């Protein structure tokens, strides 16, 4: 049995999903964050089922990729039951999707989420009355705290056993008179899409849904009837048929809302308004934006640096301790060294930065700050020809390039997705930030680290401008919901950070240890000399020690390996004893830009195709090399 969670963006589906299937989905307070769906096998009151968390969709007719994904699943005929999650505080709008879902005639349960928010807004909802009108259970829930979930699950089982499909809500009489003949025609001519009910199909055809129209086109009788009905609607209502239907559904939802809900007192959201007044202010908004990110990165560096120093010392002592046990240059000593470096690399260098970073990002997300950032930055993103929403992949890029590339799905235009995908891989991810902090900030000074970040933004903006100039002009308007601020639930924030961190621990850390051991073996067998020799044209060009060649190769596996392997390849953690400050800068700049890691290349491949991924690899490599070379040439001025 397959259960789909469907609802509009930012209605709390992912939070609910996490209650159902353990912690699997990433939640946030940004509309459209779940781009791809998550699936989990679970048990609901003993019922074994597969549960799918669909991306939020405002409507089933849609062009945005995230919403198309949801549509594809809902129309696949493989969904046995829908849990329609509604944001109770936005009930009338949420009901518009519900009305569409009802037409699918799939057993359904309504989950009235965010009842606490609705109460704060002074909206009182009569769930029983709603349930009575629609013919399916409507269960009040607060997904963040888990309130009402037991009731919800019990009703899922009941609906599943009784196959309760709910009653399709009728439009006004004159419209129904146009729909009905079309439905009967579709019923008799059994040649088109059999997976969806005829009424649903008829309505979608009147809404000028392109993919359904395409499907129907070969059946001439139907297609002609559809056109005729569209014209009839347009004639009688003085507007195109798709607008007539959408207005009608809107009116139906409003009507339903008035029947089941009551606004008992005016909303108490003065606090949110007051915060917005500052945060979205024409001047202070930007000051706050700068302060937030300045504090954000400084705090992370502060916490990281505080933990990193002592930990490294501890591991050095441990390493020295082993040296007294084994003969020098023995295989076991190489293996132990390699393993220790891998473990310490994970614990002492990456975790102190990564964990605070992830917690910080989760808090910014959950509070609801990111859409405000998109609002503030739209003007500037527009300058480089991009949509304000594209700031989000860039910001996520400071965490990890993989979700950044994946999140470009929130952009409507394919050419924007392409540009932002490629550019977001140039944004230093947490691993590269670790390198910038660990090498440049730690060894040379925080201001030089800041300079690298500034250079990076400059390069990305320049590329953005050039690339949008090269692609055909097609500006799409900025339309984005500003969700109310929320105090992040500590449990959610920690869980989310842990979930993201776990990926690192499970996938990357073992790779780090293995990579470190392999590098030790390469060193033991002196193969590193071969690799270093092969890469020597590049290292010579950038005036780097030949031994860093291998580390660059390992950086492709995981970026942080470049730095961990650097200390390994150089044979000391005191990098400055063997490299000049200029060399450290050149190395860091090159590593910041050159070729995305394998996981990111995989994500790019999926998002923008093989050619796009290849182009990104070439572009980043060339950029890294050119910038490294420039840094080498002018580095002498800063570090005589």
């Amino acid at each position, binding site marked *: 049995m397959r259960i789909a969670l469907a609802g509009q963006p930012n209605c709390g589906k992912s939070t609910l999903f996490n209650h159902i299937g353990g912690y699997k989905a990433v939640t946030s307070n940004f509309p459209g964050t779940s781009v791809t769906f998550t699936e989990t096998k679970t048990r609901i009151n003993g019922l074994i089922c597969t549960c799918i968390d669909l991306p939020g969709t405002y409507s089933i007719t849609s062009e945005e990729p995230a919403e198309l994904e949801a549509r594809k699943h809902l129309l696949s005929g493989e969904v046995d039951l829908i849990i329609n999650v509604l944001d109770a505080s936005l009930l009338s*709008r949420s009901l518009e999707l519900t009305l569409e879902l009802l037409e699918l005639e799939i057993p359904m349960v309504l989950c009235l989420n965010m009842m606490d928010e609705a109460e704060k807004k002074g909206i009182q909802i009569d769930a029983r009355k709603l349930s009575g009108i629609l013919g399916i259970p409507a269960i009040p829930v607060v997904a963040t705290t888990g309130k009402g979930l037991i009731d919800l699950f019990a009703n899922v089982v009941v609906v599943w056993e009784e196959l309760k499909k709910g009653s399709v809500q009728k439009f006004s009489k004159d419209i129904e008179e146009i729909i009905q003949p079309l439905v009967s025609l579709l019923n008799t001519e059994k040649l088109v899409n059999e997976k969806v009910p005829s009424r649903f199909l008829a309505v979608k055809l009147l809404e000028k849904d392109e993919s359904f129209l395409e499907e129907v086109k070969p059946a001439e009788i139907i297609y002609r009837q559809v056109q005729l009905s569209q014209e009839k609607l347009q004639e009688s209502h003085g507007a195109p048929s798709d607008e007539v239907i959408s207005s009608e559904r*809107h009116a139906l939802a409003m009507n339903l809302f008035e029947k089941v809900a009551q606004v008992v007192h005016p909303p108490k959201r003065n606090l949110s308004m007051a915060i*917005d007044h500052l945060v*979205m202010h024409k001047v202070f908004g930007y000051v706050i934006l700068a302060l937030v990110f300045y504090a954000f990165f400084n705090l992370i560096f502060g916490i990281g640096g505080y933990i990193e120093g002592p930990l490294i010392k501890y591991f050095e002592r441990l390493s020295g301790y082993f040296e007294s046990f084994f003969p020098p240059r023995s295989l076991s000593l190489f293996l132990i060294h390699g393993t220790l470096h891998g473990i310490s690399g994970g614990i002492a260098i990456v975790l102190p930065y990564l964990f605070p970073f992830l917690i910080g990002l989760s808090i910014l997300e959950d509070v609801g700050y990111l859409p405000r950032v998109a609002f503030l930055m739209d003007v500037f993103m527009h300058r480089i020809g991009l949509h304000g929403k594209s700031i989000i992949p860039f910001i996520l890029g400071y965490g990890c390039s993989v979700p950044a590339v994946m999140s470009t799905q929130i952009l409507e235009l394919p050419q924007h997705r392409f540009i932002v995908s490629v550019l977001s891989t140039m944004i230093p991810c947490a691993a590269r930030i670790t390198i910038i902090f660990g090498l440049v900030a730690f060894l040379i000074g925080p201001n030089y680290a800041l300079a690298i970040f500034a250079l990076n933004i400059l390069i990305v903006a320049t590329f953005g401008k050039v690339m949008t100039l090269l692609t055909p002009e097609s500006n799409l*308007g900025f*339309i984005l919901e500003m969700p109310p601020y929320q105090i992040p639930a500590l449990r959610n924030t920690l869980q989310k950070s842990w979930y993201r961190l776990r990926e690192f621990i499970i996938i990357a850390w073992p790779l780090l240890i293995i990579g470190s051991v392999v590098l030790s073996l390469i060193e033991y067998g002196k193969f590193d000399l071969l690799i270093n020799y092969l890469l020597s044209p590049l290292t010579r060009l950038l005036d780097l020690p030949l031994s860093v060649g291998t580390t660059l190769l390992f950086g492709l596996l995981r970026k942080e390996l470049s730095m961990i392997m650097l200390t390994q390849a150089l044979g000391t953690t005191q990098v400055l004893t063997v490299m000049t400050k200029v060399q450290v800068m050149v190395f860091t700049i090159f590593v910041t830009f050159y070729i995305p890691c394998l996981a990111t290349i995989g994500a790019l491949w999926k998002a923008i195709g093989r050619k796009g991924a290849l182009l990104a690899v070439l572009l980043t490599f060339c950029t890294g090399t050119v910038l490294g070379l420039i840094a080498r040439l002018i580095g002498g001025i800063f570090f005589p």
Partner: protein
Amino acid sequence: MKDDREEPLTQVKSQNSASLTEGRNRLTPLDEVEENKKAKVIDIQGGWGEKRRLSQMGIHPGDVVTVVRYGALGGPMVIEVHGFQLALGRGVASQVFVEEVAE
């Protein structure tokens, strides 16, 4: 139906806002409504995609919206409609024609 416009909207668009206030229809593009003022949506122009997007977000002719704020340097504006807030680029907002509503 309740549509009592006399002149096509495209023509309205090309006129400046001063002459609009003199006319009987008093149609204003949404991005010319002052902050904290309410306005009733009369007509939505623009491309198919944008129109659809707005309708999915719950903005239809007849709805009353409140202009909450304007962004700096011609950036997006925020409006409130049906109890939630929506940021709209000026380009989109200029295609939404409204009639100002007294408090």
